[in-house]
């Protein structure tokens, strides 16, 4: 087989050359206590898409490929990846000397077992839909054989939404969500999990860092565990997290309430770490229910909105205006469709309403109070719509109910309020899946996708070049905004905080505990 060196490996090597010495912990020891906002229902990473599980589990597990700091695919447990010229075979050479937390050496048999389990119980098992089979010709080689060419396969394989983590082969047949003793290859290993209360990890002394890198990057890179132990404490009450950080009982916390930040900024013992672009605050229309089945009504609503006001209320001021479905620091970002965004033009809205023959039919905003940003954005949107003569009404239920209504019925609601977090961070492909069947959030009439949107989506998936796929994304974004199949308000900033004696903690999609240490 004639092989080609992947761009992925090349980018990894370029990082390696750029820096001279690999990271070494300036100080080793201590127990880092992190206040986590949400409970976890499992540490079985293959079967969970929740941020709370990922926060902890991705310090325990590793994958063949993952994403770097800028969200590019990189190798992690593999030292090389070769894509065949016909694009139907991917060959991974595994790094040598990797051990699981139970002391067992990792071989390709474990990778095969991990893929076998993921195909059976993985929460995003459709990642492997285009894969014909996989095999292990020798102990250090793992090969994926495709049914058909999928130019975006590496992007999907390296996704951290529900990553294909590598587990020991003896766990192949553990049922979904029942892997209660997670064993991975990561820098930290599980000591104790008390459901609803805390999870304790300790440094894995047998950890072998990835020498293709000199520093941690994204979920991968050169990782070192500097703490003896890390304790994730479940602290759901925001005020308690703030108090814990101020007293030093918690050395790090996530999701600090915006109202507490001015006080915390004055506290020299605390470092505030804003994580921009945490999620896209968004409202999805129901195009199968009157009056939002008319594009002119939707355009009127779009024209009426003042995104600054909405985002300010939603985030207590921690936001950025953002056109579309990617963030400015991402490779796929484009501002096409900006002429539809943040118009705040009541006259234009009224003109569209007149043209649409709008007669005061109710526009129901389906939202919830479980996530205050969603409720607050709906509240402000209601007032802005009422100001231009739209009979906007709120329907407030809890989160599971609102999702069920949005998914199962096209009656009784016109806009569904949500946030897109992980998918925009993963890239355009992961995000735009929300706008085509079976996930089409705008509820297209008869369940049939808008053909123009579908064509753009197909091009995003199948065009051979990156440039071609990026152009297709731009086309899809423009269509979605022009036809108002989604109303993105802006991007939300999540604020984390650590004690001033904590070094190396850089906000990311998870709290990474590798390469973080106490200064004293």
């Amino acid at each position, binding site marked *: 087989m004639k092989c080609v060196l992947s761009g992925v490996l090349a980018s990894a090597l370029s990082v390696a050359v750029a820096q001279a010495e690999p990271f070494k912990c300036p100080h080793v020891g201590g127990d880092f206590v992190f206040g986590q906002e949400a*409970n976890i*229902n*499992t*540490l*079985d990473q293959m*079967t*969970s*898409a*929740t*941020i*709370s599980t990922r926060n902890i589990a991705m310090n325990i597990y590793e994958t063949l490929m993952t994403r770097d700091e800028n969200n590019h695919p990189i190798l992690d447990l593999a030292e090389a990846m070769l894509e065949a010229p016909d694009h139907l075979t991917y060959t991974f050479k595994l790094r040598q000397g990797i051990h699981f937390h139970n002391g067992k050496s990792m071989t390709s048999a474990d990778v095969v077992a991990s893929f076998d389990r993921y195909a059976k*119980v*993985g*929460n*995003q*098992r459709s990642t492997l839909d285009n894969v014909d089979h996989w095999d292990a010709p020798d102990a250090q080689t793992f090969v994926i054989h495709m049914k058909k060419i999928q130019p975006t396969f590496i992007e999907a394989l390296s996704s951290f939404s*529900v990553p294909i983590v590598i587990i020991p082969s003896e766990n192949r047949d553990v*049922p*979904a*969500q*029942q892997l*209660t003793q997670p064993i991975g290859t990561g820098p930290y290993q599980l000591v104790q999990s*008390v*459901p*609803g*209360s805390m999870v304790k990890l300790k440094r894995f002394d047998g950890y072998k860092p990835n020498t293709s890198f000199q520093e941690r990057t994204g979920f991968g890179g050169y990782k070192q565990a500097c703490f003896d132990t890390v304790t994730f*404490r*479940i*602290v*759901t*009450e925001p*005020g*308690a997290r703030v*108090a*814990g950080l*101020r*007293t030093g*009982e*918690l050395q790090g916390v996530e999701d600090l309430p915006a109202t507490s930040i001015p006080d915390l900024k004055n506290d020299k013992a605390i470092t505030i770490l804003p994580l921009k672009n945490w*999620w896209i605050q968004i409202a999805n229309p129901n195009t199968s229910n009157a009056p939002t089945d008319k594009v002119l009504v939707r355009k009127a609503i779009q024209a009426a909105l003042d995104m600054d006001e909405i985002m300010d209320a939603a985030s207590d001021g921690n936001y950025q205006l953002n056109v579309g479905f990617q963030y400015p620091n991402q490779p796929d970002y484009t501002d096409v469709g900006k002429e539809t965004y943040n118009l705040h033009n009541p006259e234009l809205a009224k003109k569209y309403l007149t043209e649409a023959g709008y007669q005061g039919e109710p526009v129901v905003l389906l939202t919830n109070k*479980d*996530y205050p940003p969603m409720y607050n954005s709906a509240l402000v949107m209601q007032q802005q719509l009422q100001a231009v003569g739209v009979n906007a009404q709120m329907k407030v*239920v*809890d*989160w*599971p*109910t*609102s*999702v*069920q*209504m949005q*998914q199962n019925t096209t009656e009784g609601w016109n806009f569904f309020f*949500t*946030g897109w*977090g*992980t*998918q925009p961070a993963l890239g355009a492909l992961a995000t735009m*899946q929300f706008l085509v069947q*079976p*996930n089409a959030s705008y509820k297209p009439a008869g369940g049939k996708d808008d053909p123009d949107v579908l064509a753009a989506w197909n091009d995003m998936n199948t065009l051979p070049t990156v440039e071609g796929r990026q152009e297709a994304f731009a086309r899809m974004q423009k269509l979605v905004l022009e036809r108002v199949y989604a109303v993105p308000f802006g991007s939300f900033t999540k604020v984390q905080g650590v004690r001033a004696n904590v070094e190396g903690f850089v906000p990311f999609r998870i709290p990474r505990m590798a390469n973080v240490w106490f200064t004293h």
Partner: protein
Amino acid sequence: MGGVLVRRLLGALPILLIVSLITFAMIHLIPGDPAIAIAGMSATPEQIANIRRDLGLDQPLPAQLWAWYANLLHGNLGRSLLLGQPVMTATLQRLPVTMALSAYALVLTLLIGLLSGIVAALRQNTWIDQAAMVLAMLGISLPSFYLGLLMIIVFAVDLRWLPTGGYIALSSDPIGWLATSTMPAISLALLLAGLLARITRSTMLEVLRQDYIRTARAKGLPDRTVVLKHALSNALIPITTVVGIIVSLLISGSVVIETLFSIPGIGQLLTQAVLNRDYPWCRVAC
């Protein structure tokens, strides 16, 4: 005797069946399902559907009911979807936490409520009486959640006397348990101590006006004996009834307090189980 017992047990079976059916139906009538709650905010419909399938939630309701009964007959209450552990294990782990906290809060309630009620009654219409009743009213009026937050700011953040939250088991470290349980217990106790103080005061005032109290004083018995032996022992009869209600209020109050102080008890679990549609746990506890 054995026949009666068997008849009674058999007679209870239809009731158990009806209650379990009603519980099952009520939980499933609530819109939303656990797969949505488990999947998190950014999940795709595909991911939610996969969870639903993996957990058997896509099965018809009669099939789910049948599976539940079959498991019950084997002594298996199911696995909590929220915690990922057996319902029985989760309950047994958390029950002692709530019981210990409630017991501590009950002791504080009795101490504060009884003492202030007695003192107020003995010093009726003095500033002591008025101060005790104002404090009692304050305790009743302040939401325990708000009181808890105030206590965290004062005793944990400003004075650094107590931890802001978390829980240490009584069996593993009694001092640690006292430190982690004191603020939650006081938050719970002050509300009910106010209630108990007012009832104790009014009951004591009534008893202190009785003829036998006047007789006891006329016999020259010391005040302490009159109050503790003759007045309080009689006043305790209605107070005891109220204490029974207080115990149940303490346990229900733990729902809020355990969440605020991150205490892994039954109250916290109950809140999260309902919000997240944890069917297996709700079938047992809700």
